[in-house]
């Protein structure tokens, strides 16, 4: 939950929870071209600038004369359903049908569109709905109230005798009604109400009801336009080879054969990359294969993953920054009846979005135009401006649908690279990375190394929990203000504030940046590592105490009833405790990350040769108020597959400074014939919404490895799962 903590350091400017404080939050007026325009300033959005310069809106709702409602929001659709759940919030209070609301991409403008939880214009950290939940409903209620006032004035009746419903205002006593479109211009002249009441959850029509996603039709008939699909007039296609060793440089290029390829137009040589510009990708790829490039590999020419792992392991022998401390672990460990110790490690991972990295750029002397699918469009604009040597206002960025984000498209390295190439090309150029380039020049989920010890009393109950880990801090690079005193809230999420009641707990983190390999956010980020480690170690404690893993956890949850409830629900629905065949087993995990409680039970079978098959996954989730239950289910199904892919297959390794994996043959994805049955059980309540895009990914991994332990007795402390270690002894 890092942005919440970052945001909490700025002065509180959020609207009061029980009413609407309109000053500094919302303004209404006439829209250009007629109609009603509401301008919203979401809390924390523009930092100190807001106080200094007054009202700074970052979201806009326009009700046009034809009744169409257009919402301009900074969030981007990458498959998580946000284009549907965000309009649902407005439509609920505005009393319109979902299909009347159209959502537009915001142009890049970090001042205007900063995500209130992230503090920058980005879609990530599972927080679009979390951030927009209160203010968008309030805005809908304000607009509705103003439309009702306008109708009442026109009919000369008491506003209280009018009702808004399905995009019109009705006056039942006289049977009159008028559409929002007709009322919008009048409404713009009405006073903005100081206080509006929000609907009670039991009155929700849309929130909590499955909604059809607005982006689906274009995604089943080939008309959806992703960044890679743009075709500005005269566009050429380029593909590239970047230095195979991070930090290396081009020493020499022989491009004679490449230039001779039919359709190749130009070879662009950069410091650390070479690009082939052509009429189409086929010619560009053929040209690339014909290039003879000699590289100067630079300082990381001999780097291996083992070097990095060793360095991290060594780092954990020394104290780190204290992320959380409860009680006094030292004496508690010394006095414990049983002591359990373990080390864990997780590998570098690539994002492998199905849409390979790409960016289309047209650089002109006086400006630059960029077409891309980005989770952080303002960062793309800034990177393009810097690379092109242009002021920010000379760079226009068109954002598009994203063919998979998972954190990869929070980065602007691809855009900067495309601008470097485009600077040397006449006219627009689309730079498309091959899959090999995409995997070998990703920015990777960090490698982490963990050292844990715990003490149990004579009854097996944990009395001390001691955890120290080392690895990269993505926040320190991506959002430096979020890294303080050796800590950042993302890297530690899932390692601290555990759901369990431990009388003594001590957690330390050491920031160690690996040489020669860039790191980045990756779906569920810190928790993707921490939940695997903590929930595996919890399982070790249960085993050391000779207790059932579910019962052992449950006994520590009296102070976290929402956690206990999802654990019990998952266990019940999974048939926990029912017998399974030999070499099959169930494993459990429990977590509270991204403000969502989640328990998983995985059922696996392990072949004699050690191959793992996940047969069934049962998930119980409490994410507070559910906006679109169909999306919650879809996101968990998705996250489970993403997590199992990582657990069973995911590993990026370096040899001689080069990433060894190249394409989907060496960096494998789970396929449909390996996919388990997935059941999702949602706990309904009226708590604030929690994040849904990522939580399932971290939760499934330890459920799978704990199930492997149940099936084979083999505890896996290093990912991915190594089938050789699971072979049945002869």
């Amino acid at each position, binding site marked *: 939950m890092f942005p919440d903590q970052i945001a909490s350091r700025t002065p509180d400017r959020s609207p009061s929870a029980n009413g609407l404080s309109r000053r500094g939050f919302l303004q209404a007026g006439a829209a250009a071209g007629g109609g009603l325009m509401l301008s919203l300033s979401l809390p924390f959005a523009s930092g100190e600038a807001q106080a200094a310069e007054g009202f700074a809106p970052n979201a806009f709702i326009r009700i046009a004369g034809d009744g169409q409602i257009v919402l301009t929001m900074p969030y981007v659709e990458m498959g998580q359903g946000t284009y549907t759940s965000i309009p649902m919030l407005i439509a609920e209070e505005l009393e319109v049908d979902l299909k009347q609301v159209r959502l537009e991409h915001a142009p890049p403008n970090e001042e205007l569109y900063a995500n209130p939880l992230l503090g920058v214009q980005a879609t990530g950290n599972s927080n679009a709905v979390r951030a927009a939940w209160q203010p968008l409903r309030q805005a809908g209620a304000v607009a509705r109230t103003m439309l009702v006032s306008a109708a009442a004035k026109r009919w000369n009746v008491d506003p209280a005798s009018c009702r808004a419903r399905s995009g019109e205002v009705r006056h039942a006593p006289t049977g009159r009604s008028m559409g929002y479109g007709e009322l919008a211009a009048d409404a713009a002249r009405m006073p903005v109400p100081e206080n509006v009441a929000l609907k009670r959850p039991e009155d929700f029509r849309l929130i909590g009801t499955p909604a059809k996603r607005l982006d689906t039709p*274009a995604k*089943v008939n080939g008309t959806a336009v992703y960044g890679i699909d743009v075709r500005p007039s005269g566009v050429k296609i380029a593909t590239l080879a970047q230095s195979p060793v991070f930090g290396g440089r081009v020493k020499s290029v022989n491009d004679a054969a490449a230039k001779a390829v039919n359709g190749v137009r130009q070879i662009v040589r950069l410091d650390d990359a070479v690009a082939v510009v052509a009429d189409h990708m086929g010619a560009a790829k053929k040209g690339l294969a014909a290039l003879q490039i000699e590289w100067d590999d630079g300082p990381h020419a001999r780097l291996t993953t083992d070097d990095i792992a060793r360095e991290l392991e060594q780092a954990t022998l020394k104290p780190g920054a204290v992320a959380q401390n409860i009680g006094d672990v030292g004496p508690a460990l010394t006095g414990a009846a049983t002591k359990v110790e373990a080390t864990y490690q997780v590998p570098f991972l690539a994002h492998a979005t199905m849409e390979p990295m790409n960016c289309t750029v047209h650089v002109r002397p006086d400006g630059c135009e960029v077409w891309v699918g980005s989770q952080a469009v303002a960062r793309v604009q800034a990177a393009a401006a810097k690379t092109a040597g242009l002021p920010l206002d000379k760079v226009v960025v068109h954002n598009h649908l994203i063919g998979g984000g998972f954190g990869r498209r929070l980065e602007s390295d691809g855009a900067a690279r495309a601008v470097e190439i485009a600077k040397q090309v006449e006219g627009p150029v689309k730079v498309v990375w091959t899959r090999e380039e995409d995997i070998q020049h990703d920015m990777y989920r960090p490698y982490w190394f963990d050292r844990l010890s715990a003490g149990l009393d004579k009854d097996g109950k944990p009395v001390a929990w001691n955890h120290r880990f080392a690895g990269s801090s993505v926040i320190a690079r991506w959002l430096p203000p979020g890294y303080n005193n050796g800590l950042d809230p993302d890297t530690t999420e899932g390692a601290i504030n555990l759901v369990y009641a431990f009388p003594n707990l001590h957690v330390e983190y050491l920031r160690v940046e690996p040489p020669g390999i860039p790191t980045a956010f990756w779906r569920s980020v810190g928790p993707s590592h921490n939940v695997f480690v903590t929930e595996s170690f919890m399982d070790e404690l249960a085993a050391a105490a000779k207790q059932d893993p579910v019962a052992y956890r449950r006994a520590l949850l009296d102070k976290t009833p929402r956690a206990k409830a999802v654990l019990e629900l998952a266990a019940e629905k999974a048939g926990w405790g029912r017998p399974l065949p030999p070499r099959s087993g169930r494993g459990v995990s429990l977590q509270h990350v991204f403000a969502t409680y989640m328990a998983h039970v995985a059922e696996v079978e392990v072949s004699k040769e050690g191959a793992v098959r996940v047969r069934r996954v049962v998930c119980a989730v409490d994410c507070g108020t559910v906006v679109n239950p*169909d999306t919650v289910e879809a996101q968990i199904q998705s996250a489970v597959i993403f997590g199992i892919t990582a657990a069973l297959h995911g590993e990026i390794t370096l040899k001689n400074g080069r990433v060894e994996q190249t394409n989907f043959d060496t960096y494998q994805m789970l396929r449909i014939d390996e*996919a388990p049955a997935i059941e999702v059980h949602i706990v309904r309540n009226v708590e604030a919404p929690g994040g849904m895009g990522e939580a399932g990914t971290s939760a499934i991994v330890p459920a799978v490895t704990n199930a492997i332990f149940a099936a084979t007795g083999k505890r896996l402390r290093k990912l991915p799962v190594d089938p050789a270690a699971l072979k049945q002894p002869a």
Partner: protein
Amino acid sequence: MATTIKVNGINRTVDVDSDTALLWVLRDVLGMTGTKFGCGMALCGACTVHVDGAPTRSCITPVDSIGGSAIRTIEAIGATPAGAKIQKAWLDREVPQCGYCQSGQIMSASALLASNPRPTDSDIDDAMSGNICRCGTYVRIREAIKQAAQSGGQGG
């Protein structure tokens, strides 16, 4: 070298090297961007089209290997009975997430349904395991194929 291919019932003449993969002809030369690039090695299925009804990875199919065969892409799959059923099931079941792989998924599923109106789970595994979905929509893909198969008529 000028080559003529028949795409969605229309003859198209393109001037590319004879070994150019059909995928690039579709996307970059003809501007039909519904067919997607994912891996370039027939490992992911995002580029799947039909050649005379057979699901074919266009990223490794040289344009001169097609001859007079009929190519059908996602843009026209709704005109076939199986394709229409699959698209409807995809909408009903809300299959897509990011959606990037779904053109290929739908082409593979339509070809399956056209040749096998009542596919079993194992038939679905065989026909669909060449198509990767990084968003992990597999549970819904399977449900949607079964729904389409149950929606009556001859598979198409």
